[in-house]
């Protein structure tokens, strides 16, 4: 029977919505009269629509139309397609003019401006003629020239990225970790940190082993990693973060997770997200040390997702890298515990997600294994522009550089983030039916919502209650959040998740729409 306990199957499975159930009533009522095929904006390939729809694909569109025809709305993204169509058509009126999509950790989409220095260097690398004039600062030109020398314009990087940029990354890590040595040959640059994670998982997960390979993952956890794991035939073994204690990781829960895996799979790795995503925690040095001791004792490979390392707001919080904590513990652990740490140009204050560049640093790996890892990484090349952005990220303008005053604007982004954090905590916690743990880092808020039993009952006819809530929020207030269901949560608890990396006025608008909607929703189901 132990096999039945296991909720993951090898390979790609279908995650289906419970079939044949009724949809929760009260959804999509405003859309029923949507005049399809009337305004010229309804075709899936209409460039106007496609451009505006953002993450929505034509397949969403197809399903959306299918759902619309059946008057059954189950998918929040399809619903957002319909709402988009609605906003563009003459027939239906909404109380809002556009949907604010904060379901993704995508600062530029949410209205944060790219850093000028990064973009100037990119432009100069792309079109070196720009360096002839006086439009660009001297340090921009110098940086671009230095980088161009290393990469010959648009050429494929070397096996693991452009050597000089890897060197810059290793120097950055060295500075970050207070001088703990960092070897460039242990760093691989990839098209995004998820790509690097997938590669490391590929090495760890023995698809032919029985019992199957297990990886401990936190709850809540963003889903991309879980999808990667499942795709490789591994079992995701959940450990639950303690919400009441600010989403703290308690070592006992790791032990419980290991116990739960007995007879099901063979756990080889422990995946940690710090700072958290979607919960906004930042782990303390003490916590990290405990986790490392646990990993050492239980022979687990550490996978540290540290992509939000630059996003720490908590007054008492400090980002400590797993690598640093490991080194500070000293021998024998510091020489034995295997660790992969991931970082990216997509997050942080730069937010260049679209360039697709991240890296992994490997610590204490068996040299015999490193040989194959090197082979594996050498089959993919990483986009050069992303590597350029990475170089700027790890090596930003310094005081005294001509671009430094402009670069200081990142501090403005930091300040507006701090303001957002304050406002989110203030507004959300002013409702007794919400509870938001203190936001210390990362890019998301993940407040718990106490839904009235009537709402839960109504939703459960066809949807998870928090999905129902988010879909109603989308339809009625034009704000796109993610339901906690998508990340995993304790049974019987419900959450909503949204990105807090937005301009402050956008965040005010979001909170305003949310508050109005929430009051009304709670009244309706009181």
């Amino acid at each position, binding site marked *: 029977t132990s096999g039945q306990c296991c909720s*993951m*199957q*090898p*390979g790609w499975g*279908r*995650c289906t*919505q*419970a079939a044949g*159930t009724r949809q929760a009533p009260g959804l999509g009522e405003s859309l029923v009269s949507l005049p399809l095929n009337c305004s010229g904006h309804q075709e*899936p*390939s209409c460039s106007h*629509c*496609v*451009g505006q729809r953002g*993450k*929505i*694909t*034509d397949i*969403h569109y197809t399903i959306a139309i299918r759902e619309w025809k059946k008057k059954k709305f*189950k998918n929040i993204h399809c619903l957002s397609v319909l709402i988009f169509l609605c906003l563009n058509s003459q027939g239906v009126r909404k109380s809002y003019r556009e949907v604010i999509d904060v*379901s*993704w950790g*995508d600062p530029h989409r949410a*209205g*944060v401006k790219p850093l*000028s220095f990064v973009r100037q260097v*990119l*432009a100069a690398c*792309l*079109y070196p003629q720009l360096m002839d004039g006086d439009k660009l600062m001297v340090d921009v030109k110098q940086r671009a020239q230095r980088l161009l020398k290393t990469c*010959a314009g*648009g050429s*494929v990087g070397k096996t693991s990225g452009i050597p000089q940029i890897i060197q810059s990354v290793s120097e950055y890590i060295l500075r970050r970790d207070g001088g703990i040595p960092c070897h460039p040959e242990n760093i691989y640059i990839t*098209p995004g940190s*998820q790509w690097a994670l*997938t590669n490391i998982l590929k090495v760890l997960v*023995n*698809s*032919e082993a029985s019992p199957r390979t297990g990886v401990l993952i936190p709850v809540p956890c963003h889903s*991309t990693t*879980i999808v990667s794991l499942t*795709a490789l035939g591994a079992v*995701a073994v*959940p450990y639950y973060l303690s919400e009441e204690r600010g989403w703290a990781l308690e070592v006992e829960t790791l032990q419980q997770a290991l116990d*739960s895996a007995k007879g099901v799979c*063979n756990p*080889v790795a422990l995946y940690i997200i710090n700072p958290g995503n979607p919960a906004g925690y930042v782990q303390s040095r003490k916590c990290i040390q405990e986790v490392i001791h646990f990993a050492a004792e239980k022979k687990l490979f550490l996978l540290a997702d540290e992509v939000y390392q630059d996003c720490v707001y908590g007054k008492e919080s400090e980002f400590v890298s797993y690598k640093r904590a490991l080194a500070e513990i000293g021998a024998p652990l510091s020489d034995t515990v295997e660790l992969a740490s991931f970082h990216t140009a997509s997050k942080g204050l730069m937010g*260049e997600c*679209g*360039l*697709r560049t991240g890296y992994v640093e490997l610590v204490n790996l068996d040299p*015999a294994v490193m040989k*194959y890892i090197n082979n594996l990484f050498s089959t993919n*090349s990483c*986009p050069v522009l*992303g590597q350029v952005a990475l170089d700027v990220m790890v090596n930003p303008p310094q005081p005294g550089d001509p671009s430094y005053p402009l670069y200081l604007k990142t501090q403005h982004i930091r300040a507006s983030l701090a303001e957002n954090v304050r406002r989110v905590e203030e507004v959300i916690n002013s409702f007794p039916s919400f509870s938001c743990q203190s936001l210390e880092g990362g890019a998301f808020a993940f407040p718990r919502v106490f839904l009235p039993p009537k709402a839960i009952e109504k939703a459960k006819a066809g949807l*998870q209650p928090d999905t129902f809530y988010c879909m109603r929020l989308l339809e009625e207030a034009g704000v796109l959040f993610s339901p906690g*269901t998508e990340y*995993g949560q304790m*049974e019987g608890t419900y959450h909503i998740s949204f990105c807090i990396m937005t301009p402050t006025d956008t965040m005010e608008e979001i909170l305003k729409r949310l508050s109005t909607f929430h009051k009304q929703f709670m009244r309706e189901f009181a």
Partner: protein
Amino acid sequence: MSATRVQLISPRTLRLLSPGRSALFLPGGGGPHRGGGVPGFRSLIFPSLSSSFSSPGRALSSLSTTRRGLPKTKMSDNGTMTRGKVLTIDNMNPTVKKVEYAVRGPIVQRAVELEKELSEGRKKPFAEVIKANIGDAQAMGQQPITFFRQVLALCSYPELLSDSTFPEDAKSRACRILNSCGGNSMGAYSASQGIGSVRQDVARYIERRDGGVPCEPDNIYLTTGASDGIVTMLKLLVCGEGATRTGVMISIPQYPLYSAALAELSAVQINYYLNEEKCWSLDIGELQRALDEARLHCNPRALCIINPGNPTGQVQSRECIEDVIRFAAKERLFLMADEVYQDNVYAEGCQFHSFKKVLFEMGPEYSETVELASFHSTSKCYMGECGFRGGYMEIINMDDDVKDQLTKLLSVRLCSPVPGQALMDLVVNPPQPGEPSYERFIKERTATLSALAEKARLTEQVLNTVEGIRCNPVQGAMYSFPRITIPEKAIQEAKKLGQQPDMFYCMKMLEETGICLVPGSGFGQREGTYHFRMTILPPTDKLKILLNNVKEFHQRFTQQYS
């Protein structure tokens, strides 16, 4: 089953449609939740998917969730912790060990070392290392297309839009691209299938290329270079165990991306040999032979074709493509057409025919049934922009359910690099007559392509003057793949070193001349024959010297070992 059509597409919907954590996690553990009785939990038991192919007429009708079967290697309970490591050579994923990538193999590693030694002032018999191993055009001095770079610079730093030195058409193109980006920034994620307006432009391009054969933007997927698309498609195709394990037919010589991906996926590689005597043409009899033999031990499901050929440089005739399509239809194989060199055709009388066009011209019997994936990228042709990792694939006749799964697979990497998508858009939609940048664009493109044609002729001509080297015409692509005669003594010497004879040859050439080539053994070749792959990309004057050095080296080598 048909009632529960899969609706998941992006990572977001994926989360959404998986009803709760019961679907994603192993139940129990720290949580109080038990799986039994929850509807979402049942969905994860996957009601016999492998037997529910929704359209049995398709080679690829649904993802198999066949269990991986019994372990081939059992992990020992206590022996895994050699030197205290969790991850050891003994317990790592065995399929990863099989991955090899010749284009960046030991020769290239040695070349890098030699470059370093040269820069440190060490004396060598050559002044510089010439990397003729990889099709990286711009590293070889090919100039980028000005218009493309202008638009991309504008997209990167839109403040430049007020700069009067940029042509108006570049500006309007940049605005159009930025308008399709989230937050008007190339730094935002796009949909995982790619930016809608770009896919639309790609579809229009394909229609023009194929003389009006219709193309749906829905069938276009923007990828991280063509290789991302190829690997993803293979991932979708491979399933089964033992004698039912998926077999994939690839040409020999082949581009090592295919063998590496198949090794990683533990798929069965089915080799069919191209006919070197007939200018590396594809012979249906050989396809049949390879397939019949393979059927005894695996389940062949896909046929990969590289046209124009890499590393062999042949361009397939229309007739040959028709034969291949008929063969695929008869044998129910999924066709994968790697057409990244579609603009690189030099030989007179040769013309590029896309598989899609030929398929549709063969009538509905074929055009409505044969499943085809065609790949293109921004890395080759006259653009040579390898560093942007732009590419697309067009998928034809694929089952809708499988398409959903494909989008899910692609969603793991979130999206392909947005600047690469923007560049792809420019490639399929270059300046038009009457626009300010048109003349310059045509001039630059023609210059690059005619230089390549000239270098293709030159390479063939010079190599064929060397006794012991025989080179087929380089009809297309960017490489020559000449056959070399290696003296018996050298073969023995190589064996002593545990090297392939052509690896030995290329390593020696590198040490003596600084020329970096890839041995034929990295691509596969008929037993007892030896080759190397050399790009035709170096500038003409440099190429002449290079060819001459190859010539002299070969003569020296032959003399030394005869």
